[in-house]
């Protein structure tokens, strides 16, 4: 798994790529929480995620909970098919704000 963090129009955009599985979900969790701690809206770009498992989903949920607690927003953008399937299985597709593009995501989190 790789990650890339950039600032875009006042929001933090974090792109995760590759597989988020048992081996690297601790790393994904750390990255996501560090973004949330910046106290700016967070967009998580999942377009490059080939595989995400339950532990990866748990990291996303934890980040969302942290963001809510601190009063900022977190949205998922450009979710890949396989990630979307796992979110659906976990019935979290209605819990997360899911947007097609970073631009759409920006309009939702600001």
């Amino acid at each position, binding site marked *: 798994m790789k990650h890339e963090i950039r600032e875009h129009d006042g929001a933090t955009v974090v792109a995760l790529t590759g597989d988020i599985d048992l*081996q690297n979900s601790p790393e994904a969790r750390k990255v996501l929480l560090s973004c949330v701690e910046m106290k700016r809206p967070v967009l998580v770009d999942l377009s490059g995620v080939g595989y995400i498992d339950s532990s990866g989903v748990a990291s996303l949920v934890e980040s969302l909970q942290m963001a809510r607690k601190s009063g900022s927003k977190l949205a998922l953008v450009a979710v890949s098919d396989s990630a979307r399937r796992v979110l659906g299985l976990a019935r979290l597709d209605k819990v997360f704000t899911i947007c097609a593009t970073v631009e759409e995501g920006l309009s939702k989190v600001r």
Partner: protein
Amino acid sequence: MNKQQSSDGPTDAQPGDVGKGAIYDHLELLAEMGQEFASSLDIQASLKRAIEHITEYVDAEGGALFLLEEDGKILRCHACIGPTEITGLTLKSDRGIVGRCVMSNHGEIVRDAAKDPAFHSQVDATTGFTTRSILCAPMSVKDERIGAIELINKRGGDGLFADADLHLLQAMSASAALAILNARMAEKLVEQERVARELELAAEIQRSLLPKPGDGDFPVAGVNHAARTVSGDFYDFFTLEDGRICFNLGDVSGKGMNAALLMAKTASVFRCLGKTLHQPGKLLSRINAEICETVTRGMFVTMVGGLYDPKTGIVRLANAGHEPPLFHDTAGAFNSLPADAPPIGILPILDDGGDYPEIELTLDGGTLYIFTDGVTEGYLEDGRELEVGGLKKLLRENAGAIPGDRLAAVIARIDRGNTALRDDLTMIAIDDRAAHARRAAGGEAPTPRAAARPADGNDEVLLAVSVPSQPDRLKLIRNAVAETARLCGCSEDVGRDIVIAVDEACQNIIRHAYGGSPDGEISLEIRRRGGELVFLLRDYAKAIDVSAVKPRDLADVRPGGLGTHFIREVMDEVTFLPPPQDGGNLLRLVKRLS
């Protein structure tokens, strides 16, 4: 008075003879009228005959019989004879000579009707008939006013009624009143019997919804005793094609016909959906959605539904707000399995939006009992409630009997046949003893004891790999599984789902069976059997407590629970097989390819 009466009497015969003859005749007439009312179910026709008899007997030109309507405010003519037809005529119960008679409960002779201010002259005016004199007697039984009989114009002589006529009419009115009251009661009884018959028919249909007892050592037995004719409880069990037994037991809030109808609906929906939907949690949530759509406000159903597999002894069940089932293990201990989900019919969507939580347990030769609170709250001979403690005691005392007899022994203590039941009594038992013995003998254990075992004749082994219990090997497994799924013609979506399930199962082995240790070994074998893909996952760790492995509440996102949820969502069958002889755990996942 007596003198007057005899001179005005209807005949010129001697007074004594008149009395005797009249009484004799009128007794005969009364007997005939009584007979008429008793033998005919048509009160209306009997009334008509009665007024005919009376009018003829007293020798009047016309007669009418009035009955008070149920509200007591209206008098209606139900039968009449003579030149004027007034059947159906109504008047306020305090109007007219009839009304006065009914209100005062005294008979009277009106010798010149036209001069009586109460006389209702309109009928004469419209018919051209002339009412000269009226004889009227009330009909009542004790204090209950029923109506009155009115006779018009005595035939012959001066056309006036005599006191003797009044006495006679009063006697006949009293008898007619009694006959009418009897006939009304008979009619009510007939109606009650009709309702009772319909209830009995409903009960018969209800009983037909209950499953027939299985033969010999069939592992599931049930019993249902209704407190009233129909029951708000139900149970059912049926064997699926793969040998598993789908069972349920439910209790509809309330008793009586409305509860019985909801019971019939819920039981039918369960039976229908249960044949194709083999995940109890999902099944109950589907039933819940269905019932919520149409349920009457305030009614609900508590229910336990599940599957028992005699090949493994594993029960999976979901509990919608029902009494905790009791598991009696072979060591003699009772374990209670409480529910934390609401009854069916209250919330269309559960709080977490998901399915009812499932519980899995291995019976291992023990018995699972599911029952309604009618059993635990049933009264014993001494007036105390049975309670869960009493139930356990009875089950323990009868543990040696076959399941059906055990249930009968419990029910017999509450339903002693001499007092009305407080509530419906319903119980089922799922007894794993016989199946456990067969499994131990190896006779009917069709499941492989180890992943390494050679394939059955019909199985095609597609893949057999072993990897160390390390997270970085999961990708290897995923790729192998994805390729195998592709090889079998699975769509991209199905392939992706299968990969998720197998990956999560391997994670569980790494995290839970080996406790994160990288030194373990995971074996995966994929077989094709007909239209099914079978995945056997084997580890060599200490045997895990299967009952602790269950999908968690989805609001709780701890990975272990969520992963198990994914596996159950994706796979059609998830079974922990009995631990292999050389230790470890063996999990079988089955995916049916459409």
